[in-house]
């Protein structure tokens, strides 16, 4: 087997590709500029730090989901996996429910648990032929079930200063969680760009048949991609726990769809084979700038949901117009 990846033939030139990818960053800059003009607080350093800090968890979760989307599958397991991992980590580090105090090891176990959940989703997909939509939805329910069992009626509050400190302590103006998220984005990008796993994920989304015909065993890579995504969700669950200071079953509430939104807004296609980690990172920032900006300029909470939805649709529309011809999502 060669390490070269067969990429699906593309008709666009390099210049076309650059133009195509420019949509989301331009939208980000435009929206940022509009909010900055409307609100002096919005453009303050404090608020920019706040936006980036608030984006940390979503960025990590979106990193995971991006690999799955690139492959042309979908993953709805984030909420359940994050819940299970949040409870796991909160019960393993120093907390008010038991005498554990495993610290970093506890975090590692939680991430591994996330990884295992992801692998199970992947196995259900390739061995049992369950569509990824259903497999991951089921896995989310399993995760929530496991989390509820561990919850057992008493919320575990963490007392581990290291884990709590990740959200509170700052380095160069940003919380440690933000730096962790930055490392994840970088790591995700490196995996996508330089490892066989990342490049095959891309190729599976672009043209799975071509890849299979050229002798690549696709299935193990699919499972590996889901496992990788699960590990990111697990870390996301740990980060939420650090932020909230407690293990919540609902730790991952809403992250599944926010992450998909962020990835799509950033230019990752739901049909796979297009987009990637840098796109998603831009998407995450876009979503966070939007939620923060609407509060800062003082849009009434009764209007926010609707306004946010409209802007997201407009941003996606603006981002995909250059690739309308190829965009199979718009059917």
């Amino acid at each position: 087997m060669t390490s070269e990846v067969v990429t699906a033939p593309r008709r666009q030139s390099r210049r076309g590709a650059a133009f195509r990818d420019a949509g989301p960053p331009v939208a980000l800059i435009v929206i940022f500029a509009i909010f900055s003009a409307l609100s002096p607080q919005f453009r303050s350093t404090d608020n920019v730090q706040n936006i980036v800090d608030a984006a940390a968890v979503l960025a990590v979760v979106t990193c995971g989901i991006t690999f799955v989307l690139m492959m042309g599958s979908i993953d709805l397991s984030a909420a359940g996996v994050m819940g299970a991992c949040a409870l796991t980590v909160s019960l393993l580090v120093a907390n008010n429910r038991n005498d554990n105090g495993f610290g970093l090891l506890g975090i590692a176990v939680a991430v591994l648990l996330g990884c295992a959940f992801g692998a199970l989703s992947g196995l259900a997909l390739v061995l049992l032929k369950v569509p990824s939509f259903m497999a991951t939805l089921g896995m989310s329910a399993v995760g929530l079930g496991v989390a509820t069992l561990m919850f057992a009626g008493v919320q575990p509050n963490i007392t581990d200063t290291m884990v709590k400190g990740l959200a509170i302590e700052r380095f160069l103006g940003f919380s440690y969680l933000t730096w962790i998220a930055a490392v994840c984005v970088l790591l995700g990008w490196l995996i996508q760009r330089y490892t066989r796993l990342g490049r095959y994920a891309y190729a599976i989304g672009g043209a799975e048949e071509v890849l299979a015909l050229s002798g690549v065993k696709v299935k193990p890579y699919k499972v590996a991609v889901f496992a990788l995504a699960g590990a990111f969700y697990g870390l996301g669950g740990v980060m939420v726990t650090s932020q909230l200071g407690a293990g919540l079953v609902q730790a991952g509430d809403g992250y599944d769809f926010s992450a998909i939104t962020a990835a799509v807004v950033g230019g990752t296609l739901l049909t796979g084979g297009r987009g990637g980690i840098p796109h998603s990172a831009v998407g995450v920032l876009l979503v966070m700038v939007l939620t923060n900006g609407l509060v800062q300029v003082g849009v009434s909470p009764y209007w926010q949901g609707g306004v946010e939805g409209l802007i997201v649709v407009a941003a996606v529309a603006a981002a995909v117009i250059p690739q309308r011809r190829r965009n199979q999502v718009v059917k």
Partner: protein
Amino acid sequence: MNVTPRSAAAILSLSLAAAVLAGCSEQAGGGNGTAAAGEATCEPSKVRLVGQVRNESNPYEASWLAGGDEFAKSVGLTQERLTYDGDSTKQQEQISQILAGDTKCLVMNVLPNGDSDTPPIVKGADQAGAYLVTQWNKPADLKPADYKTWLSHITYNGVESGQQIGDALATAIGGTGGIIALQGVLDTAAAKDRFVGLQNSLKKNPGVTLLDQQAANFSRAEALTVTKTLLTKHGDHVKGIWAANDDMALGALEALQQAGKAGKVAVVGIDAVPDAVTAVKNGTMTATVSSDGSWQGGIGLAIGFCAATGKLKVEDIAAANRAFFAEQFLITKDNAGEFAAPKTNPADFECGNVFNRVAGPLT
């Protein structure tokens, strides 16, 4: 997440079947209901106690079920614990299953998922002659007094609790200064009423100004993000944070800690979840309001048990007790110790005392 995927066809046909059944059995059912409510008195040991809440994954509903267990134990029975994951369809299915069994001495203490989920539960219980107490949610025009075995509906006055914590917050910041409000899910009665309470409190305390109000949907995580944003928007003008429930108040506390403002801003909430009570006790939070979840879990079963065993005649229950606001308690540093561990008082559940906590009729 509580998506239970099921084909639309199945749901449609189920609901059709349910509608047909309901239509057919209405007349016959009415007769049964009278029989059960009128003359039957059950042996205490034959009574079947069912407690149903959304899930066990939050401390409030967990304490509800625990309260139900304690009451059941006090009369030598066990409570059947049902949870429906906040899924209305699942709740109806569970109720139908329970009602399909022996309903002669059945007592149900139910937390309906939403207002619109109450009517089918009430109809089902009425036809089966099962004793029912509902809590929190019901449509305004549906009244227990019109039914024989729907004994009571218990809820809490959100306007009052919203105002209580508003006043406590005003006192804590010395009567002057800016506050921010974190609202719940905007289209729920609880969120609306509690916010009206805050507005009443603001009228009473003219020195306090509401700088901003945002929805954080009763969620700790959303409250964290929203509070951080509002803290950067208003900076040191924020002296207090009013949250429509404790989860959001706890999220706000984390946000304050992350912004390096822990202890400098007063925070209030509602619900008295254990962590919030601890926070009030430690002084990190100013106040919360307790509806006493474990009492709620016990009282519904107690009212039903008294009616089923004949110690409480349905026709003797005062009209004002058929649907009422129950007493709620403002928890501050002074009395937080008493609320630290949720526990029930057996005396509250004696048949003569079950309506002792009526604070006013539900209008």
